[in-house]
């Protein structure tokens, strides 16, 4: 009996040793606090960060806050107790996490802001495409589209926002509307789709196309909202090109709509580059080394590091995707992760 037990324990120990990753080679564990997984960008960010961090020697664990600020605060507190090498935070609420960030840094744990810039307190590194900038790029594209249609920049835009409680959509709106102020002949109707629900976006488009049949352009703040908008337009008997469409984030469904002729422009958040930038600077962040300002090449994109009041900040330019460049594998929506490996910044 004793021999059998010993043999069983021996087999279990061997199996455990075989199945356990070789942590000896790892530089440490990094926790990624993702705001939600009900969104293709966020889901993609998990796999991209995991892939790039692995390339530079870090293991990554992910915690999902389900879009709940209080849940994310609790997660931060739990993770601080675990003393990881670093915390990557994509905040549910841009400002509510301030005390948690300060607590983590006070405990000696570096905090990296991913995708959602927090300016109210210093962090060790911030990697963003710039949500306000995404709105501004969208405004540039709207200007081009309206000019091409009317000969001058005028017309009516329906802006389908995301959830009104989400700072991400409010920032895009801010960037978009600030830039569009230059064109007084453009009327913007903004309606939020509660909880980013696609069906809500469909209803908004249905109602607005009846109340304002002269809408020239529909700008949705996420590609999946454009899918619902297209479904509503299709049900109303519209064909691709009858109403111009634009959305932001660069999700695969948005690229599909471009190929089908429904969507004119998708403003991409450079997901891969944003994640790669985090991996490139992770050694410096973990070892608390100085990050020098200047231009860096991140997966072929010219990106700028500046030292802001809230710490080192890398801004990676978003891009406008149209039918001309939709098949470019660099866009994360094509789901072709870069084949090359990232290298830590020396």
């Amino acid at each position, binding site marked *: 009996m004793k021999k059998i037990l010993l043999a069983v324990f021996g087999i279990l120990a061997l199996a455990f040793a075989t199945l356990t990753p070789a942590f000896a080679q790892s530089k440490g564990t990094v926790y990624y606090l993702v705001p939600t997984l009900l*969104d293709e960008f966020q889901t993609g960010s998990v796999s991209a960060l995991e892939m790039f961090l692995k390339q530079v020697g870090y293991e990554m664990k992910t915690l999902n806050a389900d879009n709940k600020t209080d849940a994310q605060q609790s997660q931060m507190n739990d993770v601080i107790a675990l003393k990881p090498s670093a915390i990557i935070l994509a905040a549910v609420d841009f400002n509510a996490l301030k005390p948690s960030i300060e607590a983590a840094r006070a405990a000696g744990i570096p905090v990296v802001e991913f995708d959602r810039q927090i300016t109210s307190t210093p962090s060790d590194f911030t990697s963003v495409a710039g949500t306000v900038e995404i709105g501004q790029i969208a405004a540039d594209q709207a200007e081009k589209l309206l000019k091409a249609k009317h000969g001058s920049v005028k017309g009516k835009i329906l802006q389908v926002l995301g959830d009104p409680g989400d700072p991400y959509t409010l920032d895009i709106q801010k960037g978009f509307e600030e830039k569009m102020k230059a064109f007084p002949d453009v009327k913007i109707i903004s309606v*939020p789709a509660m909880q*980013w629900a696609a069906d809500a976006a469909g*209803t908004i488009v249905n*109602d607005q196309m009846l109340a304002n049949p002269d809408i020239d352009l529909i700008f949705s703040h996420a590609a999946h909202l454009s*899918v619902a908008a297209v*479904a509503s337009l299709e049900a109303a008997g519209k064909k691709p090109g009858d109403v111009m469409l634009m959305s932001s984030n660069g999700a695969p*469904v948005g690229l*599909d709509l471009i190929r089908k002729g429904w969507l004119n422009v998708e403003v991409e958040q450079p997901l891969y580059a944003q994640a790669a930038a985090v991996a490139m600077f992770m050694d410096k962040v973990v070892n608390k080394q100085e990050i020098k300002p200047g231009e860096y090449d991140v997966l072929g994109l010219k990106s700028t590091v500046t030292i802001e009041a809230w710490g080192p900040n890398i801004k990676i330019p978003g891009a406008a995707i149209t039918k001309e460049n939709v098949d470019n594998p660099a866009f994360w929506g094509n789901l072709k992760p870069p084949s090359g490996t990232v290298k830590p910044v020396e």
Partner: protein
Amino acid sequence: MNPRTRHALEFVLDNLVWFMLVFVLVVFSISIPNYFQLGIFANIIEASSVLGVMSIGLALVIITGHMDLSVESVAALSAMAVGILFCSAGIGLGVQLHPEWLMVPVSLLIALAVGGIIGAINGYLVVKVKMSAFIITLASYIWVRGLVLVISGGRSAQDLAPAIRWFGIQRLLGLPLTAWIAISCFVVFSLIMAKTPFGRHLVMIGGSETATFRAGIRVNRNLVIAFVLAGAIAGLAGWLLAIRTSGATANLGVGLLFNAFAAVVIGGVSLKGGVGTLPGVYAGVLLLSAINTAINLMGLPANFTQVIHGLLVLAAVLLDAFKQTIRQRLA
């Protein structure tokens, strides 16, 4: 009070939510530009399709004096199952059946089965294991939504097969077929509730489970059927949701549960059970949809919707108490 006046008063009390709906429509038509047009009224009916169907299932369970919090997540799971199988973009597998029309009954059966299975699990745990319906269905609300996330990986399925999408595009008398499906459901289930022993038994169970049991009615069996029906009807709502959005996202239908509850309560169904009719629920659904449409057209911040929904529910409860007082005086 003469019998004619009493009869008229009782009619008004019984159909108060319909009068509220007419009043709201008149006010909005007068005060909101572009509201008064057939297209907008068609939109109101169309937008209420999914919520309406979901509210039917929820009302059935609430009338029995129980609760089903899982309907929203069940609808999302059914939509995702249909989306994954019959969408050709995103995570859709693009399953093709020949002849093409076969995809309609197959996708519908899948949606109904997904819902029915979860309804059966809820019903079994509530009735056989004697656990609280609130807790059981709250757990289902959470784990089923989690399952949506697991099977989708957070990604979406898009571009539903044209044969299924046809129901969202094809119109009859200015309304898409999805709206007619919702209306048909209300008619069928209203008749079931009013004209069949099963419907009457559900109301009796809600009134007093013990008395109904002593009257020789199979309470447990009827309760399980009510939960299975609620699940299957939520599955149908998911099928309509997938058609409406031409696919499925992981967050599809988020928030519908609370709107369904609001519609049911505004429609005159008592949360204590034993009271309520499905036509009233439909009026409640249309009322919420009319208000949402008004908010869309006015360009008000969407948060107003929640405030108004909340106040409407409160008004409905107060009206219900007011109705009871008047009825007692009439008696």
